C-alpha cells in the first residue's frame, strides 16, 4: 500500500461526517426549495446526496414524511437512478465514463491505475470508507476523453499524470472545491459552425421577432392574454403567425425521432387542458453525443429564446429544462442566465412588455438514466417518479406533464426554432435537402484527429465529414449512437438526412485497427445497464444479449449463439415497451451483417459449447489461496 495513508490527515470534507442533524437540515432546506411538492422528489434526493454523499434510510424516511409519500415510493425512485446511492459510497465517488470511445482511449488502464493507487476494488467502497471507483455510461465528453465524474463533477482529458494527481488529492482528502480548477475545464471544440453554432443573435431577438410578426396583423388584439392563450380565432395572430413559420420551415425534431415540430406544437396548442407546458429535453444520453452540452454552454440564450417562442406559440406559461445529471457542471451558469433574463423581462410576467405573456423556466437535473431521454419517461422523471416510459397513446401533446398538453423538444430543435422566429420558415427551408431542412450538428469522436462539433446543412455525405475531421483508414462509422446505424466503408457516400441517414448527432469513427465485435459488445452492455426493467423482453432480453456477447468474447461462442441473438432481436423488436428495447439489438445486427468475420473468428468450432467455464469457476479458489501457478489451472492437469 502507498505510504501517503500514514501521513497526518487533513480535515475531512463535510459530507464524510454527515450527521443526522446535517441530514435533517439538508432535507428540510431542499424540500422547502422545491415547495413541498412531491413532483420535486427526484430533485430533493439529488440535493440531499450532493450535501451528504448518499441518501441514508433516515433521510428517505424524512423525505417521505415531508412530501407525504410512502417510504417505498421514495426508495423506489432513489434506487432507480444510478447516480443516487442508498448505501455509503465514500467521500469521493469516482465514475469512469465507459463509452466505447473512452475504451479506445485507454480508460480501462487508467481505472486500474487509480484503483491500485487508492487500494480499492472497482465498485466497492474502500475499507476506510473514503472512496468508490466505478463505471458509468457515456458522460458526453467523447471529444475529450477518457472522462470521469467525481462526485458528479466532470473531468475530461484523463492521462496517467492526471490520474496520479487525482489519486493524490483523494488520499490527501482535499475537498473538491480546492482541487485545481484546470481539472474541471470542459472544452467546447466547435470545429465547423453554421447558422446555429455561429449564431450571434442578441438575447430576446427571437421573442421580439415573434411578437413583431403578430403586430403586422392585429397587434392590439394579440396583446389580449385570454385571446392568444386560448387561441380564439381572429385575435391570435401573433402566436399563429409564429406557428405558421415553424410549420413552413419543416423543422423536424433533432432528438432522433424526427417528428415535425410544427405539427407537434399545433397539436399541443389545440389540445384542451388546465395548462400547457414546454419541456426542453437536455437529457443527452446517447453514447457519442455531446452537441447539447456545447449548445447549453455557449448558446443558452438562444435555447431559452426558443423555449419562450414555443411557449408563445402554444400558449404555455411553464417551461422545464431536463438537464442530464452528467451535465451538472452547466447548472449554475444556466441558472445565472435564467436570472439575467428575468431581470431583462425576457422571462416572468409580461415578457417584452406584452401584457399576459407570462412564462418562466425551471431546471430539473437527471440522475443517471438514459431511458429518461424518451419523452414520456422524461415527463415521469419530471414528476419525481421512476423514469419508466408511459403507455402511448395518449401522447404528451395531449397528456404530458401532470396529464396536461406538453411539448417535449430537443435542445437543438428549440435553438433552430429561435432562428426561424427571426429569419422565417422560408429561409430555413432553403437550407438542407427537400425533406430535411436546416442544419445538423454532428458530435464527432473516435479515431479522428479533430474531434468536436461539426455543423453542416443536411445532405452532407459521410465522406466529407470524415475528410473534415481528419479520419484516416476508416473502417466504420456509428451514426446516431448505438440506437442508430453502423455503416462500413462502402457506404460513406451516403448522406446525413432524414431521407438517408437520420441521426440525433453522434458520429463515432472506427479505424481499421478496431475490433467491431468489441464495439457491439460495449453497446450491448450499455443497453442492459440502462434498461428500466419495466417490460420482460427488454429487462431480461438485454441481459441475455450481454451473456451471449460475453460468451463469444470468452471464446465459448458458437453458431448457436449467433442464432440465439437473432431470436432475441426478434423478441425485442416485436414486444419491447419503448425505443430502447426496439433498438437494443441494432449494434449487434449491424456489425453481424457488415463485420461477420469479427464474430466468427472468435467462435469455437463446435455447434454448441456451454457458457460455464470449469476452469474459470476455480478463479475464486485461486484468489483465496493466492495461487496462480500452472497446477492451479484445469487445462494443465493430466
Amino acid at each position, binding site marked *: 500500500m502507498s505510504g501517503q495513508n500514514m501521513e497526518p490527515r487533513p480535515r475531512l470534507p463535510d459530507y464524510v461526517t454527515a450527521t443526522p442533524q446535517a441530514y435533517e437540515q439538508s432535507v428540510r432546506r431542499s424540500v422547502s426549495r422545491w415547495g413541498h411538492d412531491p413532483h420535486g422528489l427526484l430533485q430533493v434526493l439529488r440535493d440531499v446526496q450532493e450535501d451528504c454523499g448518499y441518501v441514508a*434510510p433516515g433521510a*428517505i*424516511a424524512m423525505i417521505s414524511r415531508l412530501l407525504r409519500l*410512502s*417510504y*417505498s*415510493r421514495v*426508495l*423506489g425512485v432513489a*434506487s*432507480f437512478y*444510478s447516480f443516487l446511492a442508498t448505501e455509503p459510497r465514500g467521500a469521493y465517488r469516482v465514475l469512469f465514463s465507459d463509452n466505447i470511445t473512452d475504451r479506445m482511449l485507454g480508460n480501462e488502464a487508467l481505472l486500474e491505475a487509480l484503483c491500485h493507487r487508492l487500494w480499492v476494488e472497482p465498485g466497492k467502497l474502500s475499507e476506510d470508507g473514503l472512496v468508490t471507483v466505478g463505471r458509468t455510461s457515456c458522460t458526453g465528453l467523447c471529444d475529450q476523453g477518457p472522462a470521469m465524474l467525481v462526485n458528479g463533477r466532470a473531468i475530461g482529458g484523463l492521462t496517467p499524470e492526471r490520474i496520479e494527481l487525482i489519486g493524490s488529492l483523494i488520499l490527501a482528502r482535499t475537498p473538491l472545491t480546492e482541487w485545481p480548477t484546470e481539472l474541471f475545464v470542459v472544452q467546447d471544440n466547435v470545429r465547423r459552425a453554421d447558422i446555429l453554432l455561429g449564431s450571434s443573435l442578441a438575447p430576446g431577438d427571437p421573442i421580439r421577432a415573434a411578437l413583431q410578426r403578430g403586430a403586422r396583423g392585429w397587434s392590439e388584439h394579440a396583446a389580449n392574454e385570454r385571446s392568444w392563450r386560448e387561441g380564439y380565432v381572429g385575435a391570435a395572430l401573433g402566436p399563429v403567425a409564429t406557428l405558421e413559420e415553424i410549420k413552413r420551415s419543416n423543422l423536424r425534431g433533432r432528438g432522433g425521432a424526427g417528428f415535425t415540430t410544427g405539427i407537434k406544437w399545433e397539436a399541443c396548442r389545440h389540445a384542451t387542458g388546465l395548462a400547457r407546458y414546454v419541456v426542453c429535453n437536455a437529457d443527452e444520453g446517447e453514447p457519442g453525443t455531446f452537441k447539447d452540452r456545447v449548445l447549453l454552454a455557449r448558446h443558452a440564450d438562444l435555447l431559452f429564446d426558443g423555449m419562450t417562442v414555443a411557449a408563445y406559440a402554444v400558449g404555455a406559461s411553464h417551461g422545464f429544462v431536463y438537464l442530464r445529471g452528467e451535465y451538472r457542471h452547466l447548472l449554475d451558469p444556466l441558472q445565472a442566465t435564467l436570472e439575467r433574463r428575468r431581470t431583462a423581462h425576457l422571462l416572468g410576467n409580461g415578457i417584452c412588455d406584452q401584457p399576459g405573456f407570462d412564462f418562466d423556466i425551471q431546471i430539473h437535473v437527471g440522475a443517471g*438514466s438514459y431511458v429518461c431521454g424518451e419523452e414520456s419517461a422524461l415527463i415521469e422523471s419530471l414528476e419525481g417518479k*421512476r423514469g419508466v416510459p408511459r*403507455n402511448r*397513446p395518449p401522447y404528451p401533446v395531449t397528456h404530458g406533464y401532470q396529464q396536461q398538453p406538453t411539448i417535449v423538444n430537443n435542445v437543438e430543435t428549440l435553438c433552430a426554432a429561435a432562428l426561424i422566429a427571426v429569419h422565417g420558415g422560408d429561409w430555413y427551408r432553403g437550407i438542407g435537402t427537400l425533406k430535411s431542412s436546416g442544419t445538423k450538428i454532428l458530435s464527432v469522436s473516435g479515431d479522428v484527429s479533430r474531434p468536436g462539433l461539426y455543423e453542416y446543412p443536411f445532405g452532407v455525405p459521410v465522406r466529407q465529414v470524415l475528410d473534415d475531421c481528419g479520419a484516416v483508414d476508416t473502417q466504420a462509422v456509428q451514426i446516431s449512437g448505438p440506437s442508430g446505424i453502423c455503416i462500413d466503408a462502402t457506404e460513406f457516400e451516403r448522406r446525413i438526412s432524414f431521407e438517408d441517414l437520420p441521426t440525433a448527432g453522434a458520429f463515432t469513427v472506427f479505424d481499421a485497427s478496431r475490433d467491431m465485435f468489441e464495439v457491439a459488445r460495449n453497446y450491448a452492455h450499455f443497453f*442492459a*445497464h*440502462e*434498461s*428500466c*426493467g*419495466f*417490460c*420482460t*423482453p427488454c*429487462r*431480461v*432480453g*438485454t*441481459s*441475455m444479449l450481454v*451473456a451471449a456477447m460475453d460468451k463469444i468474447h470468452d471464446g465459448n461462442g458458437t453458431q448457436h449463439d449467433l442464432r440465439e441473438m437473432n*431470436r432475441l432481436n*426478434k*423478441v425485442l423488436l*416485436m*414486444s*419491447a*415497451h419503448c425505443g430502447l428495447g426496439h433498438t437494443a439489438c441494432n449494434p449487434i445486427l449491424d456489425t453481424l451483417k457488415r463485420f461477420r468475420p469479427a464474430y466468427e473468428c472468435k467462435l469455437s468450432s463446435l455447434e454448441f459449447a456451454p*457458457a460455464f467455464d470449469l476452469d474459470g469457476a476455480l478463479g475464486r479458489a485461486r484468489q483465496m489461496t493466492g495461487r496462480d501457478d500452472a497446477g492451479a489451472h484445469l487445462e494443465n492437469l493430466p
Partner: protein
Amino acid sequence: MSRGPTFLLDGEEVAFEPGQTVLQAALAAGRYIPHLCYHPEFTSHGSCKVCTCKVNGRSVASCTTPAEAAIEVESDTEELNDLRRTLVQMLFAEGNHFCPSCEKSGNCSLQALGYDLGVMTAGFRHLFPERPVDPSHPEIWLDFNRCILCELCVRASRDVDKKNIFALGGRGLGKHLIVNSETGLLADTDAAITDKAMHVCPVGVILRKREGFAVPIGSRRYDRSPISAQALEDAPPRWRRMND
C-alpha cells in the same frame, strides 16, 4: 352481429364496448389471448408483454391497446405464440422457479401458461438471482425468488387496500419488489392477510403461513382445466353478457 362496433380477431368478428381494450373485448367474447400481468379487476399496465398481438400489422400489448372499430387483430399465430413462449421462458430463467417444491404449483399462472403454450425448457441460461425471503410477518410469507414483477400486488395495495404496501425498487435486471417499511420487512407494515394484495399474486411470492397443500396436487385450479379456459371464466360477467 349488429349491436355496436366490432373488430376482427384472427378473422372473426368481436364486438366491443367503447373504452374496452383489445384483450378485454376478446375475453368478454369468449376468445382467449394469453396474458399474465393483466387482471380483470385492475388497471392494465402492459409490462409482461405476453398478450402481444398484431393490430393492423403492428405488434402491441393487447391489454393496453384500445379496441377500435374495424381493426384487424392477429393473435393465434405461430409467430406470436412463439414470442409468448420465449417471454415465458425469459421469466422462468430470470427468477428461481422450482415447481416441484412450490406450494403454488397447480395454482400458478406462470406454470399454467408454460404448460398451455407448450414451453418444454427454460431455453435460456438460468440467472439464479439472490433474493432473500421475508418470513417476518406472523401470517404472511414472502418468497421473492418467484417474483415476475407483474405489479399486481402493487396495484391491489395501492388501488384497493389504499395501503401502498408494495412498490418496485432498482432498475433493469436489478428491479425488485420492495415493501413499505424502513426495515424493508413486511412485519413492519400494516399488511394484513385480509388485504386484497395478499391474494392476487399469480405466482408463489405471497403465501399464507401454516397452510400447505390444503388442496392436493392434481386437484388444483389449473389441474382441473387449462389457464386458457379459466381466463374466460374469470372475465367479468358484464362483458360476457354483451356478447351473448
